[in-house]
Structures are given as structure tokens and as C-alpha cells.
């Protein structure tokens, strides 16, 4: 074989089909272990930790170019931004004062009614560094991992509302499954009447749905849905979605409602990862 350099004189290896069959077996074994038993977290974590520095280096030039573009910003733009932020800060201050008095009042009322106090959550800010290039899922990678104390299952929010949940934590990064992923759901409560529902993703960035809705459920266009906190994962009161359209039952006994996610799913660069509650969540009183 003149065209294949380093050809051995004697063939001492298994035939190609045999080797292929072995590799196929190994692949199928890996697939089965990964889907049925999720037993390969260590392999995935190790390979990911090895790849992470490479990905950071590759992304660096792009980030530098963003920085350089950000440097040449005009005075007018800065001034406008500054005014806008100042105004927003004043609004926030007023809202914060309101919140303080409401919190105090809430605590007092809870004490009077002998209800357990509302649990507090700690948050960690993380930056989205990458989206996962896969045809199946809506996931992003953030630059905080188990080394920073993150763990799978923690809820992720941004300034506007719920974004998703940490589904895998690697040493230096974590994988966040967005709320819009088809397999992702969140228990919510209708702000208008306290109706409890479960919102699930549809696989589209702009649409969530309530799948198994009672035919006579009181839900209307424009209703705001907030997390109810009854699952022990998401703290109560995070804005999730706004109802866009309700659909009467057609071939199924259930109605459906479509909603628009309120959080900037797939828009923001920074998100906050909330540490879930240590103790069992306080039961949310029915309004």
C-alpha cells in the first residue's frame, strides 16, 4: 500500500468490522447508562472541566471585540443612560420602601396567625457564557459551577422573572435548562385569583403553555402568573409568564392556555442563581 504510510508489514490488529462492532457496543452502553441511570456524571464533568479553558480562550477574542466596541461610546449616550438609571433608581427606592413596610406587616400578620415565617433565599450572580448547540434542548451554560457552590436543581432568575433551573453542575460551569425547554415546568399561581397551575415550555423562545387546564378554570388573557412556591424548588413570588391566549378544549377534555415568558429567556447576559430553601417550604396561604 504505497499511499498509506506507516503501514505495518504484518497485520496484528483486529479486523475493522470487529473493532467497529466493539465501538458500537461501547457507544450503545454509554447511551443506555446516560439515559437510564445518569451514571456518567463524572466522565462528563471531567471532560467538561478539560474543555472549559479551551472554550474560554476561543471566546476571548470575541469578548475583547465587544469591549473595544463598548469603549467607543458617545458622551450623549452615556448621559442618556445615566439619566435613565438615576430615574430607575429613584423608582426602585420607592418600591423598596414599600416592600420593607409590606414585609414588616407580613411578618406581623404571620406572627399573629402563628404561621411559619417566609424563608429567605441567597443569590449568586452568574454570566451566560454559551448556549448549547443542540437541536433538542433550550439550554445555556453559565460561568459558575460546583466550585462556586452551585448544585443541580437551583432556580435561575433575571431582573424580569424566572429563567430556568440548573440541571447539571460541572466544576467551573453549570448547565441551565431554560423555562422554554419542553421538559421544563414550573408551578405557578394566577396573581388575579390565586388559581394554581403548572406552566411548561413548548420548545419555542416566546411561548409557554398550561397543558392540562380545567375546562372551567378562571384564566383570562392578560393574567399574570407567579411562582407559587409549593414545589420547594422555586421560591414563591417570582414573575413567570403572562397569559396571551386561552384555547377551549377541542379533542381532549382539557383546555390550554398559552403564555409569554416574563423573564428575558435567552436575552440577558447576567442571571442570578438562587439557593433553594434548606427547610421545607412554608405553606402558602390561600388568598
Amino acid at each position, binding site marked *: 500500500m*504505497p*499511499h*498509506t*504510510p*506507516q*503501514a505495518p508489514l504484518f497485520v496484528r490488529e483486529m479486523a*475493522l*468490522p470487529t*473493532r*467497529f462492532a466493539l*465501538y*458500537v457496543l*461501547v*457507544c*450503545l*452502553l*454509554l*447511551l443506555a*447508562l*446516560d*439515559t437510564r441511570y445518569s451514571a*456518567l456524571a463524572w*466522565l*462528563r464533568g471531567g*471532560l*467538561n472541566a478539560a*474543555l472549559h479553558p*479551551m*472554550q474560554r480562550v*476561543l*471566546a476571548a477574542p*470575541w469578548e475583547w471585540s465587544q469591549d473595544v466596541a463598548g469603549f467607543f461610546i458617545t458622551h450623549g449616550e452615556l448621559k442618556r443612560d445615566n439619566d435613565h438609571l438615576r430615574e430607575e433608581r429613584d423608582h426602585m427606592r420607592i418600591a423598596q420602601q414599600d416592600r420593607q413596610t409590606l414585609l414588616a406587616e407580613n411578618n406581623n400578620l404571620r406572627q399573629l396567625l402563628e404561621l411559619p415565617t417566609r424563608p429567605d433565599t441567597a443569590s449568586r450572580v452568574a454570566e451566560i457564557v*454559551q*448556549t*448549547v*448547540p*443542540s*437541536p*433538542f*434542548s433550550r*439550554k445555556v*451554560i453559565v460561568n459558575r459551577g460546583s466550585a462556586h457552590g452551585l448544585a443541580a436543581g437551583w432556580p435561575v432568575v433575571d431582573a424580569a422573572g424566572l429563567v430556568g433551573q440548573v440541571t*447539571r453542575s460541572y466544576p467551573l460551569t453549570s*448547565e441551565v435548562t431554560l423555562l422554554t*425547554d*419542553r*421538559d421544563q415546568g414550573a408551578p405557578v399561581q394566577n396573581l388575579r385569583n390565586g388559581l394554581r397551575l403548572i406552566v411548561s415550555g413548548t*420548545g419555542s423562545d416566546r411561548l409557554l403553555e398550561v397543558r392540562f387546564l380545567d375546562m372551567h378554570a378562571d384564566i383570562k388573557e392578560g393574567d399574570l402568573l407567579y411562582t407559587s412556591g409549593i414545589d420547594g424548588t422555586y421560591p414563591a413570588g417570582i414573575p413567570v409568564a403572562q397569559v396571551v391566549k386561552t384555547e377551549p378544549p377541542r379533542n381532549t377534555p382539557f383546555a390550554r392556555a398559552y403564555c409569554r415568558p416574563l423573564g428575558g429567556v*435567552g436575552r440577558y447576559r447576567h442571571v442570578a442563581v438562587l439557593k433553594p430553601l434548606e427547610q421545607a417550604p412554608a405553606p402558602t396561604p390561600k388568598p
Partner: protein
Amino acid sequence: MNGARPLLPQGAELAAPPNRAKVMATLFAALCLTLLPWVDGLRWLLPDLTLMVLLYWCIHAPRLVGLGIAFFLGLVTDVTHGLLLGLDALAYCGAAFVVLSLHKRLEGFDAPRQILQLAPLLLGKEALVLTLGLAFGRGEADWRYLAAGLVAILLWWPLATLLDRISGRPALPEKAVME
């Protein structure tokens, strides 16, 4: 026979056969290219460059790459996709196996003619990943990702030419005659 291909390699090919360093370097470069932060909206158009470079070397240096490297590259791709572990590894091994068993035939064709024989592989890989993902219950597949296979087919000729230049392989004569 003027335009006939010589039985033994001549000139540049004889002087510089593809060596392990070059093969590994190009494979690594292709992997890095796929790891670049591409625009999200165009992800489904991104061809699997790692697989294409791997297949090129399976044709032209079958002693230097094999199923082991295909398996490892597939695993790395799987980890970056965060999808099922072993999915891309299986697709890569399958494609490498087909090309390795046909490399003697494929070597005799120039890049445009190779496309016709590699197209089912490049398209089939995307289809296999999508179907297996569906079979293992990963929700709904985004079928636009099949377009990546088409882009890979279109890119084969330029990529093969580039790798020919890198490896110092002389272009096949216009009318290659298989003796």
C-alpha cells in the same frame, strides 16, 4: 498514458506524506472552530467540521486515524453539546467505519466526485443524531439541523482542497484513470 495517475506517489507526496502531527493539528483546529461562540440564530447551519476533517484523513491517511480517534472526538462533541453521551460518538464511528472500508476507492476520486459518495454519510450523520435523540426521549427535534448536513456537502470541496494544500498532496490529474 499521459494523464494517468502514476502507480507510485511522486514528487511532493513522496517527500511529505501526511504525518501524525499534521493530522492531529488539523483535527484539533476543526474542533476549535466548532467550539467558537457562533451566533445562536445560525447554529443549525454550522456544519460538523470535525467529522469532515476526520473523514478526509480516513480517506488519505487511514493508518493514522481510526475508530479510536473517531470515538474520542465524538465523546468530546457530545460533552460540548450536553446531549446524550455516546450519540455523536456512535455517528462518528459509523461514518469513519464506512469511509475506512471504502478508502481505497474514495482515494481515487477528486473532491467533487467524492461528494457524491460522502453526501449520504454527511446527511445521514445529522439524521442519525436527530432520530436517536428522539428515540431516547429528548423531546422534540429541531429538523432545521439537517441543513448542517447540506452545508457540509457544499463545504467538502473547499475543505478537501485546503487540506490537500496543508498536507502537500498533489492534485489528481484531470482525468484520473484507475488501473
